[in-house]
């Protein structure tokens, strides 16, 4: 069974329908890129999958042993978060919080997990540094390490390379691809970058105005020629 199955899903908020007729599945180990214009409902889809918004109609079913709190999330940062007074270690550790239950403090295995994830992403040297003094790419790796502390099964990434310079963006894509390849972590990524989506993703969901335009494998997406319509509009 697929990890996430969406059936005739309609999304929106405050009674406004943003997008409808969404049908797609995400299997374990998939790398799904969700592309589309601004305002097409990509962020609404993220919020609905995270259960921050109820769907207007249709269903989202989790399967394959995926529990609701096992979705690791990499949000787009707010200005307040970029400037937050905390050390790298404090932020990464906060990803382990769902393992604590009612226990007020982190135990040794959670600290070890945080350390292992910082090592995995090459930020162990930064663990005592102040988060707000890091570069954009380093901050994204900190947030990715935090998400990995919460789960290894599925990562939901909301424009992970927004605001990064090309070198940092390429590095970020490399890290995400290696997590998908080596640890079999399922990736769902919201993106504006069609070229990178085609290069890295196994599946693509393209949301147009109010309707999904395409869902399928990347190869089928390339031969369908739908990608050109979005590129033409955004450039």
């Amino acid at each position, binding site marked *: 069974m697929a990890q996430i199955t969406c059936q005739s899903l309609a999304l929106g*908020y405050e009674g406004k329908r943003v997008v409808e007729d969404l049908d797609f599945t995400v299997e374990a180990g998939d790398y799904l890129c969700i592309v589309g214009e601004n305002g097409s409902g990509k962020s609404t889809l993220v919020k609905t999958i*995270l*259960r*921050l918004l109820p769907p207007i109609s249709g269903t989202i079913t989790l399967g394959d042993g995926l529990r*609701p*709190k096992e*979705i*690791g*999330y990499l*949000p787009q940062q707010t200005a*307040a*978060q970029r400037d*937050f*007074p*905390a*050390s790298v270690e*404090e*932020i990464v*550790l*906060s*990803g382990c*919080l*769902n393992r*604590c239950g009612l226990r*007020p*403090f*982190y135990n040794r295995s959670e600290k070890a997990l945080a350390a292992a994830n910082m090592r995995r992403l090459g930020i162990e040297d930064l663990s005592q540094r*102040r*988060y*707000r*003094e890091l570069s954009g790419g380093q901050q994204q790796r900190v947030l990715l390490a*935090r*998400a990995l502390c*919460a*789960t290894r099964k599925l990562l*939901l990434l909301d424009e992970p390379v927004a605001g990064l310079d090309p070198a940092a963006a390429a590095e970020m894509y490399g890290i995400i691809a290696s997590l998908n390849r080596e640890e079999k972590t399922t990736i769902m990524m919201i993106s504006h970058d069609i070229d990178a989506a085609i290069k890295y993703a196994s599946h693509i969901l393209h949301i147009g105005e109010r309707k999904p335009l395409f869902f399928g494998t990347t190869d089928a997406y390339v031969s369908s020629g739908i990608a050109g319509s979005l590129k033409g509009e955004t450039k």
Partner: protein
Amino acid sequence: MTELLDKIAFYFAYPTVRYALIAAVLVALCAALLGVTLVLKRYSFIGDGLSHVAFGAVAVASVLHLSNNMLIVMPVTIVFAVLLLCAGQNAKIKGDAAIAMLSVGALGIGYLLMHVFGTSSNLAGDVCTTLFGSTSILTLTPTDVWVCVAMSVLVIGVYLLFYNKIFAVTYDETFAHATGIHSGLYKLILAVVTAVIIVLAMNLVGSLLISALIIFPALSAMQLFGRFRAVVLGSACISVICALLGIIISVLWSSPVGATIVCVDMGAFAVFTLLGRIRSGKT
């Protein structure tokens, strides 16, 4: 110097001065702990807003001739604290605008009610006392002090037990919620504790001082420290030291307690800003 110490010893022989000292230090400690989260979540004005709500509720209680006005003031303030803090992103009027509207509205209604239905001959004096706590801190009873101690134990206990959860909800409540933390519950706890502190502190030290105690120590600590734990501890220490200094100065020079502590807090902020500049210049 000995003359000064003698003078301090002389004043501290009075129980009222000692009570004032205990109450101010404890309120300062609690406000500083909560202040870090409130300032970081962009709710700096909540102290102001909620204490004005409490002021409005006091006016309503006095119009209704209630013997114990806490029965109205506490629930009303808690309800508004929950509305403000938990409404979050989905509210039509958000954050600063909601707090400002509430603050000004409650102040207006409160003053109007006191003016129209008031029985006091010294209205300006009553209003001044509620807002600036001009002398009330020097007239505390032992019961007031015990209430203050109990409340502080409660706040510090909640803070220690939920420290990591408070960090997660302060930093990124969306992520916390997505990974199965009951962020709504922790926000509710924060809102209730904030309201309780503000109402009790307003009776003790006045509404001007409680707003200052929430924002200044937290901001001062953030100028110098970059770890969340250091900011929290720093904020608590700065707040307690400033409250102590403020009380001693106000007793020695008979200046108003609340206003003096606010000025000491401003001084501390200036010092910490300078230290922060020097430190970031070096590294």
